[in-house]
């Protein structure tokens, strides 16, 4: 018990911070990527829709671990990448590479969630807005986007949890975040279940906070007051 409080908890809290940093940055970039990809898919232009479709299909169809190793060990080892300072900055550091991989992966899933929202907006709504004299931009900003956002939000908030869980893979490229440190403790000590419980509670805390925030957003968007 003393060992637990002296050894395990400070170590795990340190990993908790790294997990939060990677997770929150990945969520930020993934949301942007997802939104852009979804808009490209729904733009009605093949030249835009196809790359977005390809992106979402490829990244959803393969394991995150493969994507991470492909970026870190594969692309990061190319001579060309090593010569470009900007690219090298990105690929040489495990944490940045992890953020990149999780953003790309999670962005693909988020794009599907957002696309579902965009598709759910009834045609009549946008037609009416157009007939009313709104420009295409106004229709999007005032009608389509707000409605799509409300539809997409539950699926989007699920992806937040998945993105946080994805950060655990950063430990495989030597970034010592929560799961990596938990693994270290489990392999070195007899505190296996205890370590799992503490690390698990920390993940639970992150995810519950995120879902709580999502719930507050839903409240403020007036999604919760509607009768279902």
């Amino acid at each position, binding site marked *: 018990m003393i060992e637990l409080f002296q050894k395990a908890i400070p170590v795990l809290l340190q990993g908790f911070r790294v997990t939060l940093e990677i997770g929150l940055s990945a969520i930020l970039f993934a949301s942007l990527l997802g939104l852009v990809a979804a808009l490209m898919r729904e733009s009605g232009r093949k030249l835009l829709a196809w790359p977005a479709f390809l992106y979402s299909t*490829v990244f959803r*169809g*393969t*394991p*995150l*671990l*493969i*994507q991470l*190793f*492909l970026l870190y*060990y*594969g*692309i990061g*080892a*190319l001579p*060309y990448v090593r010569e470009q300072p900007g690219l090298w900055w990105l690929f040489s550091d495990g944490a940045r590479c992890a953020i990149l991989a999780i953003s790309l992966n999670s962005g693909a899933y988020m794009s599907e969630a957002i696309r579902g929202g965009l598709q759910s907006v009834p045609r009549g709504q946008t037609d009416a807005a157009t007939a009313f004299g709104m420009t295409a931009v106004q229709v999007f900003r005032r009608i389509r986007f707000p409605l799509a956002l409300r539809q997409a939000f539950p699926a989007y908030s699920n992806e937040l*949890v998945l993105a*946080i*869980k*994805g*950060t*655990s*893979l950063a*430990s*495989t490229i030597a970034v010592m975040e*929560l*799961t990596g440190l*938990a*693994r270290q403790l*489990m*392999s070195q000590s007899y505190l*296996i*279940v205890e370590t*799992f419980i503490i*690390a*698990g509670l920390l*993940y*639970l805390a992150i*995810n*519950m906070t995120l879902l709580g925030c999502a719930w507050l957003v839903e409240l403020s968007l007036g999604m919760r007051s509607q009768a279902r």
Partner: protein
Amino acid sequence: MGYGLMMASLHDILASGWGLMLLRGALMTLFISLCGILLGLIIGVGGAALKTGGNPLWRGLVNLYTLIVRSVPELLIIYLLFFATVQPAADLADWLDLDDLMSAFFPMLVGIVAIGLISGSYSVEVFRGAFKAIAPGQLEAARAIGMSRGQCLWRIMLPQLFWYALPGANNVWQNALKDTALISLVGLVELMRAAVLGSAATRAPLAMYLLAGVLYFIIGAFSQAAFVWAERHYGRGMRVVRA
């Protein structure tokens, strides 16, 4: 720049037998996913039955299980299963004098149990939805014409349950397939591990991981097609409003 290099290393990989290694790894991936999802289906049906049943204690336990397994990273669960059982398993093997057998089957067993527990937590919701989709009137009618509880389950519930659960099960399966890659981190030689070993041996990580990624994608795409076919095939007698 990289294209010529890429083709050359692709040729090297296939010529030096790593293509075959990857295929064997893919078979192991399929095997683990199938066993894992079967275990997960059992957990899913059982969990859904407990959750829809009246007992609040059981319902609470199932909820706790799904909450924990869904909010904690898969990798952490795999590490827990591995590190908590590796020493007892080694002792048992020592005692039984079956060290070779254990070293071959232990990672596999951990993998199957892990995939089962993880996919099971999602299957519970899938089957709960399917249970709910069956109109209670059907069961009442079946009981009224004198079917036993077992007959009700076997003739009325299960065939429909299976069909209602198919779309959700497809999702669970696709995730299980991708989650097996994590089992490579506790030493099981499946597709991901084969790619890691191969990229160390051939010094061509980019081509190796791309190849493995393509294999994952192919398995996923084929099983997706199988699910779509099954939905259509087994849905022949179902009354559905098609969009």
